[in-house]
Structures are given as structure tokens and as C-alpha cells.
């Protein structure tokens, strides 16, 4: 592979670059970096005028559903959706069947990731923190790390027992890997299917109170203060109170990080008024006040990461009564568009910060090697057109599933290609 990336804007938070430069890529490595480079005709020229060349984006929270739920998604279809959405890497959650709670499953997922989509999307498993995600016994974390796990989570369920959480934090700290918590106090959320508040009152719908998330984060932060050298990452943070607690904890230098999904900064619980089950996710869509607090948290770096919680479900599974529908929506292909539209166009974030939240920060949290755009480094890029206007058409999704509330939405900005492992795809 010989590529001449011409006239693009290089944004690389790792080396602090934000400038117009050409890049010559040869056999998967950055051969040369500079202004107005010339290359011999064997190089394929990509005209990237007004486009962004960023270090490869990683979505640290996706559900690839394999093994066990291949009717919803497979590692192959999920990776295809990731590539189309501009991601060169994904971290897949362990709530598969069997769960990713032992070596062989972790290895299977990694191997499968290498085989599909020409291996252009790196698949990093997040392993279960406890056996079978039951919250009762520790999963074999050391073996799972050897098999390629980059973090631990019982996502879909919280680690509800305080004692179990303490031990998980302690054990995982030996590998410098985070426990990723799905923060939800389960005794307060039984039967709930949307945010508890004015809208759930209007609709007569069983609610999931914000305080159920906040309680669990408050407890975990206390544990984090007690357990030394552990690392804690809050998955899909969704309430104002949660953002405030993480902000305060960061001020006291607790090793806490967190992520937010595009739907939690784009939609509010009012969207549920349609009774469209594609507005049903966990944590649920919250209020305008929460959305504003999340944007403030993104702006002041309380929120480190944007991750999708890509959660495919089939049409038949979703086309049921609201209370019966499973939680979750797909998100890989709309993440960059929603983020640019909702955050960059509205001056919440600059593109540079967006790159940090999609690439630099999640890689740091998961102890993955940093991607540096410098001569001699591996070429791992996400190419973005930050201005293009497009409309979401779910029929064209590469995912096996179609569960998105964003069908038909007008967006600004999208990935136009990715480069990784000496290969590239353009869209």
C-alpha cells in the first residue's frame, strides 16, 4: 500500500499537532510527513483538502453479540459497521453467550476480529469482571489479560455487591486495567423502562430514577478512595449528578474516568413520547438539564470519552410493546456525525478535543499504545469530512440490526475512510 494523503488537516493530540500537512504512507507506516510533499506516481493520491486526518478512532463500548446472539450482530457485521463509522478499533462487551469470562472466549473474539473485514478493525475484548457476570466470584482476570482483554466490566448489569466491587478493583489494579461500571443500583430500577420524571409521569411509564445511577457511582468512588491504585471507569454516564461527582472526584485526583454516548447528549426523555422502542436504552434518555450538564462535562474534560454503547437488536425484538422491548440502540455509524453536529457545530468542543475523546483518551484508559502521527509510526488513521451534510438512512447500515432513533436525521460531518494495518477503506 502506497498512499499520499494530500492537503489534509492533521490533528494529533499525542504529539500536539494541529496543522495542514501531507502524509506519505508506505506499507502501513508513515514514511514522510510535511507540507506539500511530492511522491512518485506509484502512490495513490487522496485529496484531503478541508478534511481531517486523525489518529484512528476507537469505540470502547460496543456489543458485537458474538458468540451467542449472532442474529443481532456478528463480529464481522459489527466490524463492518465500525469501519463505516470511522473506527479502526472497537472494544466489545462481555455480555455474550457464553460471556467473555474465560480465556477461550476472549481468544475466540480476538481471533475472529483479525479474520473479518480484512483485519482493518482491531477488536479488543472487555472481559467480564465476575464469572458469568453474576457478580459473585472474580473472573480469571490474569488469564483474560493474557488472552487480550483490555478492561473488565459486567456491563448490562452493575457489579452490585460492594464487597465484590472492592475485590474487582483490587484485582484488576494488578494489571493497570480499569473496572468499567454499568452504574445502576438494581433495587431501584426493577421494571423501569425510561427516566423517572415529568415525562414518565405524563406517559404513565415505570421509571428509572437518576439517583439509582448516582448512588452506585457515589459508592464506587468511596471504594476507589479506599482501594489503592485501582482504576475505575464509568460507562455511559447519563445524569447531572453523576457528572458532578466525577468532576469532584477528579479534582481530588481519584483515578476515575468516564464516557458518554452520543444519544445521551443528543436526545432527552421527551423522545419517549412517541413510544418508539428505539428510544429505550439503559441508562435511559434523561432530561434537558442532564444533557446540558453532560455537554459541560465534555467541555471541561470531566467526561473523557465518547463511546456508542452500540447495542444491536433485531426488528422483531424491538417491534413490541415498550415495556417488553430490550434496551439499546446501534450507534457506530452515527457517532461521529452526531458528535460533530451536536458538539462541534455548537461550539461545545473543538475538533481537537473531539479527537481526544474518540482516540487519545480511550486508548490511554485501556493502556493501549498511543497512536502518534509522526514519521516511522504505524499508520492508523480516521479520515473525516467535518462539514459534509448527510442524512441517516438505516437501510444502508452495515450492522445486522436497524434499531436507531436517528433514521432520517440530518447530520453534519462523517468519516470518509480509515487506514489501519497497511490497508485502507474509503466511503
Amino acid at each position, binding site marked *: 500500500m502506497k498512499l499520499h494523503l494530500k492537503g489534509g488537516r492533521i490533528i494529533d493530540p499525542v504529539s500536539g499537532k494541529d496543522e495542514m500537512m501531507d502524509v506519505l504512507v508506505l506499507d502501513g507506516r508513515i514514511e514522510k510527513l510535511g507540507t506539500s510533499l511530492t511522491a512518485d506516481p506509484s502512490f495513490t493520491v487522496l485529496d484531503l483538502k478541508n478534511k481531517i486526518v486523525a489518529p484512528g478512532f476507537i469505540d470502547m463500548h460496543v456489543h458485537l453479540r458474538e458468540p451467542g446472539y449472532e442474529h443481532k450482530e456478528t463480529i464481522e457485521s459489527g466490524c463492518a459497521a465500525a469501519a463505516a463509522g470511522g473506527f479502526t478499533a472497537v472494544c466489545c462487551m462481555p455480555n455474550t453467550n457464553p460471556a467473555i469470562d474465560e480465556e477461550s472466549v476472549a481468544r475466540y473474539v480476538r481471533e475472529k476480529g483479525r479474520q473479518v473485514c480484512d483485519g482493518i478493525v482491531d477488536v479488543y475484548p472487555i472481559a467480564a469482571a465476575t464469572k458469568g457476570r453474576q457478580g459473585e466470584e472474580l473472573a480469571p482476570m490474569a488469564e483474560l489479560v493474557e488472552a487480550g482483554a483490555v478492561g473488565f466490566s459486567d456491563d448490562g448489569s452493575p457489579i452490585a455487591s460492594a464487597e465484590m466491587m472492592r475485590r474487582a478493583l483490587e484485582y484488576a489494579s494488578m494489571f493497570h486495567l480499569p473496572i468499567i461500571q454499568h452504574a445502576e443500583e438494581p433495587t431501584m430500577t426493577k421494571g423501569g423502562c425510561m427516566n423517572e420524571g415529568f415525562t414518565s409521569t405524563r406517559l404513565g411509564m415505570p421509571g428509572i430514577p437518576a439517583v439509582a445511577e448516582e448512588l452506585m457511582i457515589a459508592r464506587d468512588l468511596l471504594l476507589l478512595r479506599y482501594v489503592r491504585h485501582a482504576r475505575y471507569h464509568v460507562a455511559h454516564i447519563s445524569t447531572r449528578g453523576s457528572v458532578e461527582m466525577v468532576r469532584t472526584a477528579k479534582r481530588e485526583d481519584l483515578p476515575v474516568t468516564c464516557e458518554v454516548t452520543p444519544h445521551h447528549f443528543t436526545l432527552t426523555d421527551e423522545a419517549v413520547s412517541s*413510544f418508539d422502542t428505539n428510544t429505550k436504552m439503559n441508562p435511559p434518555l434523561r432530561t434537558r438539564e442532564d444533557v446540558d450538564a453532560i455537554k459541560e462535562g465534555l467541555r471541561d474534560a470531566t467526561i473523557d470519552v465518547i463511546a456508542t454503547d452500540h447495542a444491536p437488536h433485531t426488528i422483531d425484538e424491538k417491534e413490541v*410493546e415498550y415495556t417488553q422491548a430490550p434496551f439499546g440502540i446501534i450507534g457506530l455509524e452515527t457517532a461521529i456525525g452526531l458528535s460533530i453536529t451536536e458538539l462541534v457545530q455548537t461550539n461545545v468542543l473543538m475538533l481537537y478535543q473531539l479527537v481526544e475523546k474518540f482516540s487519545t483518551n480511550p486508548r490511554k484508559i485501556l493502556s493501549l499504545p498511543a497512536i502518534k502521527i509522526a514519521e516511522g509510526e504505524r499508520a492508523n488513521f480516521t479520515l473525516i469530512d467535518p462539514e459534509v451534510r448527510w442524512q441517516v438512512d438505516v437501510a444502508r447500515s452495515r450492522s445486522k440490526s436497524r434499531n436507531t432513533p436517528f433514521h432520517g436525521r440530518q447530520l453534519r460531518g462523517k468519516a470518509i475512510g480509515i487506514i489501519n494495518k497497511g490497508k485502507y477503506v474509503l466511503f
Partner: protein
Amino acid sequence: MKLQSRHLLGLEGMSKEELTLILDTAVSFREILDRPIKKVPPLQGKTVVNLFFESSTRTRISFELAERRLSADVVSFATAASSVSKGETLKDTARNIEAMKIDMVVIRHSAPGAAHFLSRVVDANVINAGDGGHEHPTQGLLDMFTLREKFGSLEGLRVCLVGDISHSRVARSNIYGLRTMGAEVSVCGPKTLIPRDIERLGVRVYHRLEDIIPHVDAFNVLRIQLERQKSGLFPSLREYHRFFGLTKERIDRAGRPITIMHPGPINRDVELSADLADGEHSVILQQVTNGVAIRMAVLYLLGASN
């Protein structure tokens, strides 16, 4: 004047004109109910299916009577006898029934939004006969009809809903409809059964009957369900009765008549004492009669729009 929608899914968002149209139409059907021959022809040749996924005696009978008195062909379907118990989805059930060429569907279901969902997957007119804790629009309408019959107008009328507001579709439809018609609505019940932010629907909240009795023209008393005790929402039926049960003794202290309504079925001497339920200011049986007239009006107005 016509209804905006071809379905009746809820009273939220309906205009005063639409609600008045239904109430006025029901007046003429109410008169028909007192005639020796109670059958009229407007829905002749139309087929109505009553899909009841939750047990209900009075609402189902009321709908069936209304349908038959409008000369519709009627099929009723209750969960126990359905294919739902075999794992069929609501969508499949509805589509299969619709494939038998029907015109209107009346649905009762435990999930909020079930009627909305149905209206998206079938072409027939959909009437919501109660969707979980969301809405029960024909109940709201018949309550409004009964109050209008009694007081002449709903404007400025002071109505209090008592009991489990959190889980009550009757409460919501009453709040939406009565507020639109200009009534003052309050709710009274244990704090654990009053949903968050309900004040934002324009209602006042009370936790003591004594505080609201002096300021009310009518009580609409909701049924309390024992299962709420099991989920920790109130301590006991005895305590509930003592503090939130409406009794003649309590009401008499107002020194003026207060109208008593109840959507049924009543837990006698729990939320409502027997002497009040059967007393001179009770309009509970009128509600039941009016229910048929209201449902005839709704079926007529929607059926006529086909």
C-alpha cells in the same frame, strides 16, 4: 367539526373543541339508551374487534354494548383464549386479526403505549381501552360527561382524584381532559403513590384528605391495589383506609354536598365507604350508564371518518 385523529389513543393533546364534540355527541346517544329500542344503524356492516389483553368486565361489556347498539359486527378476544399465551407477539396477533378485514380495534393492554404501537402496525381505527398506567380515554370522557351532566359545565369545576395516581390511567385521562375543559384538578394520596413532577401537569397535590375536602366539588376515587402494598408503596389497607379512605363522616364535615365518582370496581370500605358509594351524592352508576353513551359517540365519530 371532526376529530383530528382517526384513532382515540389518549386525551392528552386533544382540543377543547374535540372533547366537546365527543361529549355533545354522547348526549344524543345517552337519550337513545332510554328508548325501548336501543339500536341505531351507523356502524352497520362494520366489524369491531375488542382485544383485551388484560382482564376487564365492565369496560369490555360497555364497549360491546356500544358497538352492538350502533349495529356493528363484534368480535371479542380475551388473553386466556388467545394465541398470546402461545408466545405470539402483539404485532402478529393484530396483523392476523386485521387480515380478517376488520374496521376498528378496541385494545386493553398492560403496557403503556400499546394502543399507539397498534395504531402504527394496523390500518384499522384504534381505540385505547386502557394502556397500562398511561391513559384510559373513554373513562376520562365518561367521567367528564357525568360531571357535566351533574354540574352543567366543567369550567372552574373543582375535581380531586384520590388514591394511587402513579399507576392510574384513569387519573391521567381525567387530568388531561378536565384541565383542557377548564376544570381545577387536584390529586390526593400517599406520597409513595403520587408520581414525580405531577404538578407540572397543572394539578395541585395533597397528602391529607382534610386539606382538600373544603375545596372540592367532586371526588373521583381510584381503586387501590393490594399488590402495591407488597411492592412497599403503602403499609396496609387498614392504614390506607384510615388516612385516604373517603367516608361519610369525613365528607359531612364539609357541610355541603360533594359528588362521588369511582371508575370501579370498588373495594368497599377501603378507598370508599359503602354508605358513600351508595349514597345520594354518588354518581357511580350514572358513570356506568354514561360509559355506553360515550363509547357509542367515540365509535360513531371514528367509524364515520372511514
